[in-house]
């Protein structure tokens, strides 16, 4: 029902807006009708079917439609007569229209023009004041407490002024007087309202965290194993240096036989390990190996000051090989009863 009402009112307004144009249309169609009759029952004249001319007409129509769409606001301005001018121009174009395709464009333009006409007519209030949304907005801004003197930091040139943060609250407070809205529940102790979201987040975090950490634990464990291995060597080397130094300090005069020092009579593998670790001491220059008067290798720690810069020249390399057989031979030959380097396990138990 409202649809049909709108249609009729639109056509009435259209007439009002178009005025003279509305009248000229029927005349014109009468003209073309005569011309068509002149063309006879065969329908289309040859001159009517000139593609170049038709193209020209269509392009002119399209230009006109575009300009109407783009200058819509301008055309709605009650101060000018641009809508009328557009319709005049369309009339001129229509005089040359012979075929449906061009006529369809004309119809499209007419729809646009009609719509504009309706809007223009709605600006015309026969009675009472007109309602201007821009003025309404300005009044609202004043009511909402806009400070026009203060500049907003990122404000546009035409949107100057400072809006207080409670601007919409202020308007709502007054506006809700117009609404018969049923009040919705609210919590007597308002803080409840803000509570629910954080716990939900916490739950998510808890759920995600273990899985992430579990993934991360694997590589760190591996790293630690590597580290501990390296560290173990380093510690062992330091421990052996400590042993060596303490034996040397006990009796600096008597030399410490290398084999007596490294060989563990209870364990071949410990012996190999000791040789391995002691080699670091030699390499790093913390201990030196020399032959005593019996041409037996002896080991002694190197004191801080003793380390000569030129000592590097005197360096020698040698590879010590040991097999369980030689190990036993050494034990017998040197009459080794106990290990000078206590095994680390015993040490840690003592510690």
């Amino acid at each position: 029902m409202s649809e049909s009402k709108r249609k009729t009112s639109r056509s009435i307004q259209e007439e009002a807006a178009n005025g003279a144009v509305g009248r000229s249309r029927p005349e014109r169609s009468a003209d073309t009708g005569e011309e068509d009759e002149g063309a006879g029952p065969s329908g289309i004249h040859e001159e009517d079917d000139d593609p170049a001319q038709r193209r020209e007409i269509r392009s002119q129509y399209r230009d006109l439609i575009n300009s109407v769409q783009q200058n819509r606001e301008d055309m709605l301005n009650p101060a000018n007569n641009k809508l009328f001018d557009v319709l005049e121009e369309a009339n001129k174009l229509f005089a040359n229209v012979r075929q449906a395709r061009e006529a369809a464009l004309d119809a499209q333009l007419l729809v646009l023009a009609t719509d504009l006409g309706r809007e223009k007519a709605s600006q015309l209030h026969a009675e009472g004041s007109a309602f201007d949304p821009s003025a309404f907005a300005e009044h609202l801004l004043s009511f909402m407490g806009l400070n026009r003197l203060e500049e907003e930091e990122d404000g546009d040139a035409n949107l100057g002024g400072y809006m207080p943060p409670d601007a919409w609250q202020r308007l709502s407070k007054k506006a809700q007087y117009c609404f018969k809205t049923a009040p919705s529940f609210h919590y007597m102790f308002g803080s409840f309202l803000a509570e629910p979201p954080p716990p939900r987040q916490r739950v998510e975090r808890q759920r995600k965290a273990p899985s992430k950490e579990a993934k991360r634990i694997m590589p760190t464990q591996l790293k630690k194993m590597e580290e501990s291995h390296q560290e173990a060597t380093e510690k062992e080397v330091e421990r052996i240096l400590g042993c060596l130094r303490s034996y040397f300090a006990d009796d600096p005069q008597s030399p410490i036989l290398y084999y007596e020092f490294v060989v563990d009579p209870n364990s071949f593998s410990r012996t190999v390990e000791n040789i391995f670790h002691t080699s670091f001491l030699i390499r790093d220059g913390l201990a030196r190996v020399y032959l005593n008067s019996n041409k037996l290798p002896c080991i002694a720690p190197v004191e801080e000051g003793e380390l000569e810069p030129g000592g590097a020249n005197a360096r020698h390399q040698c590879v010590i090989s040991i097999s369980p057989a030689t190990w036993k031979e050494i034990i017998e030959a040197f009459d080794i009863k106990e290990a000078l380097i206590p095994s680390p396990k015993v040490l840690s138990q003592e510690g």
Partner: protein
Amino acid sequence: MSQSKRGSSQNRRSQMVVDDDDEGSFTQPSLSQVQRARDNFTTVQVDRKVAEVVQFILIKDQRKIPIRRTDIVKHVMKEYRSLYLDIMKRADRTFEQVFGLKLVEIDSKNHIYILTNRLEQSLEEPISMCPANPKTGLLFVILGIIFMKGGSVKETLVWNTLKKLRVDVGERHEDFGDVKKTISEEFVRQKYLEYVRIPHTEPLEFEFRWGQRAESEVSKLKMLQFIAELHDQEPQSWTQQYREATSAENTQR
């Protein structure tokens, strides 16, 4: 899709009654059926059902999305459906006497209900302890423009006016979030606004009108009075709007 599923199951359950309702969930029971149902259930049972319906509607109303009869029947009434009218009448009385609310059927064809406030709002004191919902202000502006412009406005006019009020449709707003969504979806779902395509427009254009909730919840006269106050004019100076507002006020009473 769930619609059709529900429909069919409802049909099966109410096979004995002649189904003349599109929704299929509710049919007007015959007098004898009502009588039988009244005999079947005790007063205590019906009382409890009424209380359940009241609670259901109160909770549903929190989001201000209208309540459909289908949902009331499906979720609460169930086997009491033949007493629908009895129960709704009593629920309305509870809303009126206990809560000061009114149950309004805003769409008698699709049977959609809302709650409105029966009590006069006083201007002096804040209505509730809660701070006013800023969306009420936004609604006021949009409904106001539509009303003052004669019942329908192009969406561009709304967007342009809001832009003057520092509310940009394309940007997130502190109070309103996604402005376009709030207006053209939330307000529409709540039936405050209608958002419809204007026929024969290229490119597509939409216009806003008052929704059914606005029609029964918002006082045009009070709105006009406030707008007039803002303009420092008399409400009567907008003759047409004043006439419409006063006649609406009389029919609403």
